[in-house]
């Protein structure tokens, strides 16, 4: 667009004008120059086109009128041309007064203007244009002009020779001093105003573009800058830098190239070509490359500069803008509002130009004075972009402010919620603590009172059972304290389960023992029902499982009086190495109302009917927590007044005896009284065998070890044995078979069953029974006591 008003007119201006005014009779017409202060001469011209550009003034004069042709008969073929164009005028002053006139040949871009004024056979030559050094010009002014003085009644012949690589925008005029000054000042005023505005906007645009990093604005500003420079050069402003004058043509070419480059880049960004797909991008790239190359080369290569392609490409922005707008619509690419504004302006200007090309309108543009005004499209776009940038900046600012205030608001809300939550937590915690303190004094005193009472009884008379009672109460007290400590540290929630292999029956027997003691306090009876098919060894956190069961039993014992409590364990299901065990504790106590189950699981909450019972309400809450960690859930049911049932199902991994740490628990007994009794230990598990052997040997027994029943029998056949200690289940032949064999072969030889499983005879018909049974893991004290008892009996039995 930059170049579009630069050159579009001059070529057709002349041609069409000449064609339109072909009716003139030009030859030898005398023009009365002093009749009006301002006069256009083109209508009075005779034209000679010198294709060689070699004719000088004399040869032209010598040609006479023959060489010239009447432009009414033939349109000149040049627009861009390398020919020299000669114009021939006959001028006279018909008035009787002296008159001075300034001759203006055409636009300042004309490179080489020679003016010959002939009067009475003598010729005067003057010249101007960028082809000549400034000091040789007739008048060194931006608009080349030549002074002519007409005496009254005189006649002059005026020959003008013009050559130029630019468009031959020739429009010879004669003006008197006043109109010249007026036209020059008018023109300079407009130029100054427009240029001043452009550079002001440019400065702002550069600043805003730089600050906001709005590249579209920067590119637009650069395009406008280059375009303005092109216009300045074209309009002869190089006169102020005379050294550059000879390079006018090249400068225009280079600046046009720069303009086009930024201009297309502007297009690229403005129409968001990047989003239009690969095809469109390729087309765009090829097209703009060709344009840039042609414009660049055109600055130096004359043949190219004169080609039609060059002329077309200088206005190549118009079709491109149109195509890109359509492409954007088709591809559905969203464009900013000023892109639409821009394309509409381009459309209007393009249409205007086409309109001007047709018909007389071209007349108005004989003077190319719209060059600078033509920059208005770019300027308007730039202004739009500028406004857009500012608006965008403001919007971003507003958004940022809104976002900040939103974040502040959110943060405030979060803090408020946090505070509310913490306050609530604190309140709950304080409530829990205060109720804890209230109960602790009561609960910790209770068992101590009982200890004191028991101790007093002891003082009176020593009852063996009472001592263990004191011990148990104290241990129970310690457990109470542990519960409280653990709760106060909140350890229950982060406790890690420690799974270890262990004997299930031994463990449950211990629980039963403890539970029976707990139950006996209020005259309750505990019965324990352990299913036969329970696995002998399991992986479990026995410590925590014990806490769960003891808590449940304790709970049952507290709320039951003179009733019965049943601990029931059964195996629900086996899956590979896992089995599901169902534990339940059933009592015939007070029970609890329906619907209060959840309530009971909260710390320090107790049933409404539990006021007088000891405890601090932590029991069930701890049970709930622990079971949750073990992946089980406490299920409770109750009939108020008739009792309640607490039950949970637990999946446990089964274990093998090899993984066990020890088959007995060490009691550190110091007595050594084996007395040389001979024992036979039969167990298929090597380490169990070795450990038992190690233990008994340590107490002075003679120990033989057998890994199987067969081995045991062969030892029995050869050695004297006082006691057989056997495992129950062994591969191939089991402990029962061994017992049967011994009963038959050596009746009276005592056999002790030491097994992980309670005795389970396969064949009930046979009335076989072991002399004694111990469940693994027994304490070494129990084992030794049992062994010694059996050994003590045996010799007598053998003797009898």
């Amino acid at each position, binding site marked *: 667009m930059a170049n579009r008003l630069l050159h579009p007119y001059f070529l057709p201006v002349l041609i069409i004008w000449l064609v339109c005014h072909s009716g003139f009779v030009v030859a030898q017409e005398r023009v009365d120059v002093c009749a009006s202060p301002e006069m256009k001469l083109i209508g009075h011209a005779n034209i000679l086109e010198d294709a060689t550009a070699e004719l000088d003034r004399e040869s032209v004069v010598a040609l006479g009128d023959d060489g010239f042709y009447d432009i009414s008969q033939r349109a000149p073929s040049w627009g861009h041309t390398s020919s020299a164009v000669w114009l021939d005028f006959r001028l006279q002053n018909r008035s009787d007064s002296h008159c001075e006139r300034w001759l203006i040949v055409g636009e300042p871009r004309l490179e080489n203007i020679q003016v010959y004024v002939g009067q009475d056979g003598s010729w005067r030559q003057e010249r101007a244009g960028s082809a000549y050094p400034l000091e040789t010009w007739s008048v060194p002014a931006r608009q080349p002009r030549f002074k002519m003085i007409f005496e009254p009644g005189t006649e002059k012949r005026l020959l003008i020779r013009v050559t130029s690589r630019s468009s031959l925008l020739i429009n010879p005029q004669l003006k008197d001093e006043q109109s010249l000054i007026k036209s020059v000042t008018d023109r300079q005023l407009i130029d100054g105003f427009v240029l001043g505005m452009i550079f002001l906007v440019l400065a702002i645009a550069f600043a805003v573009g730089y600050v906001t990093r709005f590249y579209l604005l920067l590119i637009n500003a650069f395009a406008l800058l280059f375009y303005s420079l092109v216009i300045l050069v074209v309009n002869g402003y190089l006169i102020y830098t005379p050294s550059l004058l000879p390079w006018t043509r090249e400068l225009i070419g280079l600046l046009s190239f720069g303009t086009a480059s930024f201009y297309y880049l502007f297009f690229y960004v403005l129409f968001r070509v990047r989003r239009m797909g690969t095809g469109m991008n390729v087309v765009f790239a090829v097209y703009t490359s060709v344009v840039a190359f042609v414009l660049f080369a055109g600055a130096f290569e004359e043949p190219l500069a004169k080609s039609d392609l060059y002329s077309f490409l200088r206005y190549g922005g118009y079709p491109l803008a149109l195509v890109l707008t359509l492409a954007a619509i088709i591809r559905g690419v969203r464009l900013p509002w000023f892109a639409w504004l821009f394309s509409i302006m381009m459309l209007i200007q393009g249409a205007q130009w086409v309109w001007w090309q047709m018909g007389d309108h071209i007349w108005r543009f004989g003077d190319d004075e719209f060059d600078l005004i033509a920059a208005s499209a770019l300027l308007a776009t730039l202004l739009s972009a500028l406004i857009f940038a500012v608006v965008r900046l403001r919007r971003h600012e507003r958004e940022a402010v809104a976002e900040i205030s939103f974040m502040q608001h959110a943060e405030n809300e979060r803090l408020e919620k946090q505070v509310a939550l913490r306050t609530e937590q604190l309140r709950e915690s304080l409530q829990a603590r205060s109720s804890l303190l209230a109960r602790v004094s009561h609960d910790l005193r209770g068992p101590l009172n009982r200890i004191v009472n028991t101790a007093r009884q002891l003082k009176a008379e020593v009852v063996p059972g009472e001592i263990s009672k004191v011990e148990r109460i*104290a241990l129970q007290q*310690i457990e109470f304290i542990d519960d409280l400590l653990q709760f106060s540290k909140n350890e229950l929630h982060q406790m890690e389960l*420690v799974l*270890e*292999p262990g004997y299930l029956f031994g463990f449950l027997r211990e629980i039963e023992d403890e539970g029976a003691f707990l139950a006996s306090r209020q005259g309750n009876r505990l019965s324990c029902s352990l299913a036969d098919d329970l696995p002998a060894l399991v992986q479990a956190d026995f410590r925590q499982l014990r806490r769960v069961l003891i808590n449940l039993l304790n709970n049952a014992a507290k709320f039951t009086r003179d009733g019965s409590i049943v601990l029931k364990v059964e195996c629900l299901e086996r899956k590979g190495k896992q089995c599901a065990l169902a534990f339940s504790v059933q009592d015939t106590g007070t029970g609890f109302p329906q619907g209060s189950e959840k309530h009971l699981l909260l710390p320090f909450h107790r049933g409404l009917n539990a006021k007088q019972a000891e405890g601090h309400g932590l029991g069930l809450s701890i049970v709930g927590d622990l079971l949750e960690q073990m992946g089980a859930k406490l299920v409770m049911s109750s009939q108020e007044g008739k009792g309640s049932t607490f039950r949970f199902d637990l999946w446990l991994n089964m274990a093998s005896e*090899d*993984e066990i*740490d*020890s088959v007995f628990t*060490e*009691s*550190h*007994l*110091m007595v*050594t009284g084996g007395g040389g009794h001979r024992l036979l230990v039969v167990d298929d598990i090597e380490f169990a065998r*070795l*450990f038992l*052997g*190690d*233990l008994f*040997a*340590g*107490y*002075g027994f*003679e*120990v033989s070890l057998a890994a199987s029943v067969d081995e045991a029998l062969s030892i029995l056949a050869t050695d004297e044995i006082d006691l057989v200690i056997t495992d129950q289940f062994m591969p191939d032949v089991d402990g029962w078979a061994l017992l049967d064999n011994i009963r038959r072969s050596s009746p009276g030889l005592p056999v002790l069953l030491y097994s992980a499983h309670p005795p389970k005879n396969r064949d009930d018909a046979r009335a076989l029974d072991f002399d004694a049974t111990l469940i693994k893991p027994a304490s070494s004290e129990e084992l030794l006591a049992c062994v010694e008892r059996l050994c003590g009996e045996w010799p007598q039995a053998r003797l009898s």
Partner: protein
Amino acid sequence: MHNEDVVARWQHVAPRNTRSRILIVDDCSDDVRPALLAMSAREWHVSVANDARQGLRRARLLRPDLILLDVHMPHMDGFTFCRLLREDEVTRSIPVIFLTSAGALDERLEGLQLGGVDYIVKPYEPLEVLARMRVHLRLRQNSPAVRAEGDSASETDDEMVVRAAIKFLSQNLGALPSLPDIARTVGTHDKRLSRLFREHMGMTVFACVREMRLKKSQELLSDTDMSVQEIAERLGFSSAGNFTTTFRKQKGLTPTEFREQINGQ
């Protein structure tokens, strides 16, 4: 001076290397009475200090073979006592068994980290404490530093066998030979070895092995970068899980927790 009296008495009655000397530091004499009762059966010389500072002075003067140490005491607590003990060249290598009611995890950690060979929480089983004390006394007797101090001429044959067996065991924890093989190595047979251990150590051979494994594992956890798995393999535990369970059962915390605490400091 009271202290000098004690020293004089000890030097008079108990020449070095014949009898083990035990120092008990606890402000509550009722707490240690069961242990004292149990110890009275042994030919040990036991000194009780009711105050940490007094205990420290005695430790320097008497150079006991083992110290039973409480944690919560007036003026100076057991941990400080232990630190000061480690500062002194003379008392540095004395094994310390904590015997305390301070059973919280961080307290256990601190105790073990300060070089306590064992950490027993009250209420305790006196005979168990005794058994553990004997293990550590034996192990100490086998350590080069103590061996160098005196001759073992007054040792009975039985004691020599036990000591040799313990030495052999401590060198073969990873792949323990069978009981008869062990007995043969120290010139006896397995039944007698079990009996000797019962008499002199108050436990079975296998239980003693377990104690030694645990002690060694504590050293490996604090002094090396070996993983729990590697330590379990090296010390002959049946598995890393078994190691963890056993360690936790006795020390009150897992090997990993112990290692983390050591590294955290």
